[in-house]
């Protein structure tokens, strides 16, 4: 009997890892990626919490496994139509090429929240306001760390929960990984800019994972990072283009005003553009948050509402890198059990 085939939609780290695992289980895997290379959002990330290891190492290892297992990868390929006939899926790519598969894995990932939607933070208007993603690119470039106006910052503010936990933009959920990213970036900034003081403005500090609470303690103990519990409400530019922000120090019960040389917005995760288009094509269920709905959140999180279609990674919900890779491996096994008719 011919080996079963799987098409994985989305070549981020979830797509890469699920392809690797399925391949090692003996299935034919085709990975379809709409950009010109695989790797997804991790391509633009510098270092990963909680150990500050290089993101590129993770990508290298995943790529190595894909090469070893001869996963077929199509880049610059966008899924434009899917049709299911009996138990087989017919997938059209770029309106032209047609493939068939016995199962699909949706690994279309997330989109970073567009910080311009929070008008009060002035992203895209005031020069010295950047996002966490912009900062990672800056770290990766390895150049001297200055603010967009070229000044070496003496005081930096990091704003948590931008685009998450916010009714005004319609995202009620927590994006999970931004708090620890804020702490990680605060430490990185303090290590690389002598004399700088970094302030983190948070509503809650969600240090949920392995090593996270220790990172928070280290940030305070060794890097003098100041944590202020209060939401930054408005941001303006002063005469010398530094950023004036207003927040309340809720623990002291008083409003505060501070001028900083650089403002970093911790943007949250939103459902990926690919997720939206694939969900429409495949008629998949979604949660209120817009992320894809699992068949059972505890027992079969990688199984979609539709038979033969599985999901992996941040298409399901915000996740960190290690969570995503574990989730991808679990998705591979769900597909395997589906093929083997194991319940």
């Amino acid at each position, binding site marked *: 009997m011919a080996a079963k085939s799987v098409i994985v939609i989305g070549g981020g780290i979830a797509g890469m890892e699920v392809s690797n695992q399925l391949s090692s289980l003996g299935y034919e895997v085709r990975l379809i990626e709409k950009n010109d290379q695989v790797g997804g959002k991790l391509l633009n990330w510098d270092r990963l919490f909680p150990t500050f290891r290089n993101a590129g190492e993770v990508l290298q290892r995943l790529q190595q496994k894909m090469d070893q297992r001869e996963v077929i990868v199509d880049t610059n390929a966008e899924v434009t139509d899917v049709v299911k006939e009996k138990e087989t899926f017919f997938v059209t790519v770029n309106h032209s090429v047609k493939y068939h598969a016995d199962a699909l894995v949706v690994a279309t990932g997330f989109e970073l929240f567009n910080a311009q939607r929070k008008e009060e933070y002035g992203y895209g208007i005031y020069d010295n306001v950047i996002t966490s993603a912009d900062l990672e690119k800056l770290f990766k470039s390895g150049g001297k760390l200055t603010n967009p106006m070229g000044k070496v910052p003496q005081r930096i503010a990091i704003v948590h929960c931008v685009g998450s936990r916010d009714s005004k933009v319609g995202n009620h959920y927590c994006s999970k990984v931004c708090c620890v990213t804020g702490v990680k970036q605060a430490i990185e900034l303090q290590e690389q800019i002598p004399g700088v003081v970094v302030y983190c403005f948070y509503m809650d500090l969600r240090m949920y994972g392995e090593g996270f609470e220790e990172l928070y*303690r280290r940030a*305070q*103990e060794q890097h003098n990072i*100041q944590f202020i519990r209060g939401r930054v409400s408005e941001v303006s530019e002063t005469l010398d283009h530094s950023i004036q922000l207003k927040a309340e*120090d809720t*623990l*002291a019960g008083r409003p505060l*005003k501070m001028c900083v040389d650089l403002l970093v917005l911790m943007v949250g995760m939103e459902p990926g553009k690919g997720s939206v288009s694939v969900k429409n094509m495949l008629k998949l269920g979604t949660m209120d948050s817009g992320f894809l709905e699992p068949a059972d959140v505890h027992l079969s999180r990688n199984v979609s509402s539709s038979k033969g279609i599985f999901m992996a990674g941040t298409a399901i919900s915000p996740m960190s890198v290690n969570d995503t890779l574990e989730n991808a491996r679990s998705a591979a096994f769900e597909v395997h059990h589906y093929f083997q008719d194991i319940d």
Partner: protein
Amino acid sequence: MKNFGFKAIEPRTIDYSQFDDRLLAYLVREEPSFGICLSCGGCTATCSAGNLVDFNIRRLSLHIRSGEIENLAKEIDKCMLCGKCTLVCPRNINLRQVVMLIKKGIVALKENPEIKEL
């Protein structure tokens, strides 16, 4: 000066551009554990003095962190140095030592108000 029957009010925002951080720098240097407070309030909850008078050690620590040290001398005298706060702290901060250092720091600042560093 005319009398209009009203005056302008001073803003009550904490202004970080006018930040007297000498006491904070001194405390963090002499007792580094002071820097890892997360304002959980365990200290204030168990405080012997705080249960009887308006003495809030958590809030005082916070005020020092934002440079507000005007009323500190009067407030810090209320501490009985019983040590219950230090017993309870989940971050293992030596709060009794912090209180002693605050007292020392305040005296030094009073004797020499223009001093650049304690």
